[in-house]
């Protein structure tokens, strides 16, 4: 299942399901009444657009003239579009950076929380950045990283280091974006991992302590291996989420400087709403569906292979 970051996992299904006895005809009429609004919503805003999107991807539509069927031309073009490949490369780079920072920092934070405190206030404070709208996060960090007046450069120059154009330098822009989104996501990731750590039973730690294992050794040898399922879950959710980065880039760098942060989502957006190439944008979007589908499939296989050692 393709979860976005922040979706609460659905509650588990308890026990074998016994069916409520229904009349011979079932509950057709009641079901129709209960489902009608959701079905209308689904048909109009999920199913219909999906079919339409697939159709657009085989036309040369530009929002102005009538769409003309061009077969698979858009897909052929896409394969030879350096900007498309660049956007995939940039996206992959961002995903690696963002996941790397969030997993390492999130694990560290989770371990600290787990060993030090059960404070709800502390956990609530850590999750605040995640609740801030992405646009606001982008604006705020544009200001903090501003080349002239930004607070971060203020710190750098105060320490005798040269000021940096974090979001205007082709080398620094993508890492900067990853730092920005990590600022907003790490507290959330830490909370997920913290919950996973709570599942490791106490006696395992007691046994480790009796064997004379120190804090750090216990963490790497006991805690981490026992957390494989939750780590895999967090990885899947964050990966799919990171692939769809848009808001932060749209606000801070708009894909620049020189394509350095032009992630796939932003590239699709530009093709559709700056160049009005609806047909081509739809082909790109459908390709993204495929890429994410494959990634999800591979990850689910890995997930299944990572059943908990606690079971």
């Amino acid at each position, binding site marked *: 299942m393709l979860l976005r970051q922040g979706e609460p996992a659905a509650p588990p299904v308890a026990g074998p399901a016994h069916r409520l006895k229904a009349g011979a005809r079932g509950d057709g009429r009641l079901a129709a009444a209960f489902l009608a609004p959701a*079905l209308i919503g689904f048909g109009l805003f999920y199913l219909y657009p999906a079919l339409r999107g697939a159709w657009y991807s085989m036309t040369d539509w530009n929002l102005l003239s009538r769409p003309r069927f061009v077969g698979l031309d858009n897909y052929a073009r896409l394969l030879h579009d350096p900007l498309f490949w660049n956007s995939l490369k940039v996206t992959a780079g961002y995903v690696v950076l963002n996941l790397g920072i969030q997993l390492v920092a999130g694990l560290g934070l989770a371990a600290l929380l787990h060993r030090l405190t059960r404070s*709800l206030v502390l956990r609530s404070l850590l999750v605040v950045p995640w609740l801030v709208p992405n646009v606001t996060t982008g604006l705020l960090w544009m200001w903090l990283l501003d080349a002239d007046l930004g607070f971060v450069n203020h710190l750098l120059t105060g320490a005798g280091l040269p000021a940096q154009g974090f979001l205007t330098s082709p080398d620094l822009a993508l890492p900067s974006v990853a730092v920005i989104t990590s600022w907003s996501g790490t507290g959330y990731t830490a909370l997920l991992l913290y919950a996973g750590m709570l599942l490791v039973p106490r006696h395992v730690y007691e046994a480790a302590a009796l064997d004379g294992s120190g804090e750090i050794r216990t963490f790497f040898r006991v805690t981490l291996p026992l957390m494989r399922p939750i780590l895999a879950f967090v990885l899947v959710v964050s990966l799919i989420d990171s692939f769809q980065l848009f808001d932060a880039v749209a606000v801070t760098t708009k894909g620049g400087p020189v394509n350095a942060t032009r992630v796939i989502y932003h590239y699709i957006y530009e093709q559709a709403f700056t160049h009005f190439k609806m047909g081509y944008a739809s082909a790109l979007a459908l390709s993204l569906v495929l890429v994410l589908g494959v990634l999800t499939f591979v990850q689910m296989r890995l997930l299944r292979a990572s059943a908990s050692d606690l079971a």
Partner: protein
Amino acid sequence: MNRPSRIRIGRPLAWACLILAVVISLFPLYWMLRTAITPGRELAGDNAGLLPRHPTLLNFERVLGLTTREEARAAGGSGADLDFFRYLGNSILYTGLVTAVQTLLCAMAGYAFARLRFPGRDLLFGMFVAALMVPPIFTLLPNFVLVKELGWLDTVPGLVAPSLLMTPFAVFFLRQFFLGVPRDVEQAALIDGAGKGLIFWRVVLPMSRGPLLTLALTTAVWTWNDYLWPLLVAPGEETRVLTAALGIFLKQSPNTAPDWTGLMAGSVLSIIPVLLLVVFFGRRLVDSIQFSGMKG
């Protein structure tokens, strides 16, 4: 000798790291507020110290449209009309409407999938689950076209349409919850002669306040944060929501010297509801995130 001293250093060090993480999480937000109460003209010379030298509410007044255009320009504004009162209202309307209607309708749909018997149920539900896997951008393009064709650009119906009636996730989430509700209660009411519709309203819904609230909170946060869709379909002054307004504000601001004090004042306004959520629902938010973690 060695061991106890290591512990004495270790714990304070660990606490220091944790406190540092909280500071990193919150300091940027504090700096946002500090900038918002700094007079625009003094920003360049006044960027150290916990409080600005001459704190002012002028930046809030001008983004809320309470000052004249001349006053706003004198304070560092670009002269563009800003009316964050309206954007705030639009955001509240957008979030409130989507959250309330979507949660209720998806509860009905989720219940139907969990408890009612009708032909094609599994097929339909399978389609909903499949839709969970489609990245939003794919349906966003044709949905924009549809809203445009309907003449709903810059209207509230256009803004809320795709998310008002359902999201596959909400239906899925509540169906899973209803499947786990013990049937005894419903059985008892059924024997008393109540219909399943009545049971849903009188028994199941009141029992499900917790998960409904969790889902509603999640939906509210997403809707409040939503940027691309409102920016595309409802950028007009009448229907502009806060996130879109901030994006447009930045675009109108000169590239070389953005109106930082005004932008930060607008940003502060956009996170007030978020902070209220944490104050009132902190425990539930944290619990629902951790619940996902336990589920993992």
